[in-house]
């Protein structure tokens, strides 16, 4: 039910035409009568205080979820100041920030898409009666009361591809004084509202995601311990070392090298890797890297040790 509310609440806000797939980060507070749905049928009728935060991340056509990293922090008081902080990275920027392997991923830009699909950020406050007619992908909406919404929408024009590379750091603060539970120190000098938005797209997002400051911000937003991120990155470096050790040309897996790496001093292969030599012989190293990430993670330390051991 919450999922449905989120979708319809967001649909009422989002004025993006021509793209059904999208990654959405939204937060909404409403009080009063709020009706939305299609032109034929109201799917949602709310006569109450309603509040939700949601991140909608659709799946690619191959079943994998799009790469998204970050978080949302909201400090909202009833009829008082509110602080909302959204920090997230998507696509290649998210992968670079976490150290995830990017080999073999179909990124936007590699293939042309039919039209432009811009990143959209919306913030809206309505107090009173507001009636919106359905237009394009926006559903009809009736509000009698109060509603405050924020939404960041990243379209996915090609569902088979990874979502575009975006880094966003958004702060909306209408609180007037600081306290111990405050999530920001940025306040409006006018005792009004402070809106700080930082967007980066494409190569700019990739470049920013590579910096330690942005990585620390994202880890903080995702409530991750920086040590976890460091460990993930350490694993990525180990995987790269192992992958390089099983390839002569840097493109395909060499069966002999792989067999040598998997075989221990006792002449036995590592458990549950018996089929690897046969399966990955002549295959792309990115396929082997994926296998290492998913099934071979338990052997990573051993393989890394063998790969780095001098002959």
């Amino acid at each position, binding site marked *: 039910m919450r999922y449905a509310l989120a979708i319809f609440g967001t649909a009422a806000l989002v*004025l993006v035409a021509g793209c059904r797939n999208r990654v959405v980060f939204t937060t909404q507070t409403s009080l009063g009568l709020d009706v939305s749905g299609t032109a034929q049928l109201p799917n949602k009728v709310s006569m109450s205080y309603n509040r939700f935060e949601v991140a909608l991340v659709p799946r690619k056509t191959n079943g994998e979820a799009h790469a998204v990293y970050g978080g949302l922090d909201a400090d909202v008081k009833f009829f008082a100041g509110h602080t909302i902080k959204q920090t997230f990275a998507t696509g290649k920027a998210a992968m670079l920030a976490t150290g995830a392997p990017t080999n073999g991923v179909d990124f936007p*830009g590699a293939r042309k898409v039919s039209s*432009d699909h*811009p*990143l*959209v*950020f*919306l*913030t*809206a*406050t*309505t*107090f*009173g*009666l*507001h*009636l*919106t*007619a359905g*237009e*394009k992908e*926006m559903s009809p909406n009736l509000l009698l009361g109060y509603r405050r919404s924020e939404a960041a929408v990243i379209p996915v024009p090609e569902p088979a591809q990874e979502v*575009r590379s975006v880094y966003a750091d958004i702060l909306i603060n*209408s609180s007037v004084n600081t306290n111990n539970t405050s999530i920001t120190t940025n306040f*409006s*000098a*006018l*005792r*009004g*509202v*402070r*809106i*700080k*938005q*930082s*967007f*980066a*797209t*494409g*190569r*700019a*997002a990739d*470049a*920013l995601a590579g910096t330690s400051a942005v990585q620390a911000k994202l880890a903080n937003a995702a409530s991750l311990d920086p040590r976890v991120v460091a460990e993930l990155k350490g694993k990525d470096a180990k995987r790269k070392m192992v992958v390089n050790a099983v390839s002569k040309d840097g493109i395909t897996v060499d069966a002999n090298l792989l067999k040598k790496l998997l075989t221990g001093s006792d002449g036995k292969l590592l458990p549950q890797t018996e089929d690897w030599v046969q399966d990955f012989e002549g295959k792309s190293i990115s396929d082997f890297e994926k296998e290492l990430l998913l099934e071979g993670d338990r052997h990573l330390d051993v393989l890394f040790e063998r790969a780095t051991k001098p002959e």
Partner: protein
Amino acid sequence: MTRRFEQGLITLTRCHRRLLPLAFTLGIGLLIVAACGCAVHYRNPNTGTEQLWGFGQLRLQVQSAGATGQLAVVTSGCRVPGLCLDVGRDHFGIALGYVNRQQMLIVSSNQLATLEFPTNSVAGLFPRAANSRWMIGRVGMRSVRQERTAQAIITGRALVGLGAGLGGGETSLSLAMDTRQQAVVGDADLWLELDQVASPWPGFDFFTAAVHADAVAAPTPVKPTGEP
């Protein structure tokens, strides 16, 4: 006969007494609206042209978006109290109350040549500079065209009172205090930072916002040695 007439007069007077407060409130409301003024606002996003006939304010501001000077920030705004008729190529709107529209465009610096700052004239005579001033008569300006040329478009719209719109993504009817801000980042490789400190209402002020924008250039392909 005379008695009936007297009775009728008494009944009518009683009704009038009941309706008097309502009529008084409506009258005061209409007077306030009339005193505030009215205007017709025309805008064409394809050319960047804006015209205002009546009482209102047009604003235009240009600033550099980054240290390199490749990008510029063009901020335009329109404020109309009272009755406002909003006309455009693909939209039509009417508002009774107070309307505040602002738009910030991040564009290439070489597009600034076509800008025309607001000028005011009465019946086309004696034009004078009118940027950020409340004016009566005709006020006109030319911002940059927003379609396809802008790397990012940030739009703010605030309404207090009764408003109705048709087309242009604003098909709505409201009797409300309504404020909304939308940022659309179209460029594939852009870094945009926007810091606004605004009053509680309307909750945005693009004219005092600090903006930094940088377009990241595509890497130059490395030619293999020996290739001319």
